[in-house]
C-alpha cells in the first residue's frame, strides 16, 4: 500500500522569502503521479502543481516548483517570493494512473497529513 508523509506540521516564512515543504512517499509502483494541493482558510482544495514520475524534469508553475527525487521517494514544494495569500495548509498527494479502460484502478488520491504554512508580513 502507498503511504505519504509530511513531517512538518507547521511552518512559517517572511513575506517575499522562499520556503520549502517536505513530502516523502512509499510505493512499489514505477509509474504514478504526485500533487501538491493548497487549502486556504476558505477550505477549498486547490491544485497547485503536479509531477509525473516518468518525467525527470521538475515541474514548475509560476512561483511554485518541486524537487522530485524518485530514488529517494521525495517530493518537496518550493514557494518563491512568498505572499500573504500563500498562507494555507498544503497537502502532498500520490495517485496511480487511471486506466484507459476498465475500472479496477480507483484513481484515488492518497494524502499526507498536511503542513500549515503561515506567511508573515
Amino acid at each position: 500500500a502507498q503511504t505519504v508523509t509530511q513531517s512538518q506540521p507547521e511552518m512559517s516564512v517572511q513575506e517575499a522569502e522562499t520556503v520549502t515543504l517536505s513530502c516523502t512517499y512509499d510505493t512499489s509502483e514505477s509509474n504514478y503521479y504526485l500533487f501538491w494541493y493548497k487549502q486556504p482558510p476558505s477550505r477549498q482544495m486547490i491544485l497547485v502543481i503536479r509531477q509525473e514520475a516518468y518525467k525527470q524534469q521538475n515541474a514548475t508553475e509560476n512561483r511554485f516548483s518541486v524537487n522530485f527525487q524518485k530514488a529517494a521517494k521525495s517530493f518537496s514544494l518550493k514557494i518563491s517570493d512568498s505572499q500573504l495569500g500563500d498562507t494555507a495548509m498544503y497537502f502532498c498527494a500520490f495517485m496511480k494512473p487511471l486506466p484507459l479502460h476498465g475500472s479496477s484502478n480507483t484513481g484515488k488520491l492518497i494524502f499526507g497529513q498536511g503542513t500549515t504554512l503561515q506567511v508573515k508580513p
Partner: protein
Amino acid sequence: DAGITQSPRHKVTETGTPVTLRCHQTENHRYMYWYRQDPGHGLRLIHYSYGVKDTDKGEVSDGYSVSRSKTEDFLLTLESATSSQTSVYFCAISRRDRGTYEQYFGPGTRLTVT
C-alpha cells in the same frame, strides 16, 4: 473551476439520524469521489464511482453508502450518523488535463453530529 457543487454546505444533526450529502457536477466526468477530512489525517477516501450505478469502497467506508443514478450526481448517505462521522466531506472528480488525470474538489460540507 470544475463545476462541482455540494449540498448542504453545513449541517448539524443528531446521533442516529440518517443524513444524505449531495455532489453535483456539470461536466459529465466519469469518475467521482467522496473524501473526509479530519485533523492529522489529511483526506481519506470513503467511496468512489466509475460510472452510473458503478461504485466501490474506499479505505474508510464503514457506516457510509453511496449511489449514482445519473452521471452528474453522487450521493453519500450516513444511514445512522455517529459522532465519529463529524468531519468535513469533500466530493471530487477526475478530469483529464494535458494527458494526465487530475482531481478537482467541491467546496466541502461541514457535518456535525451531536
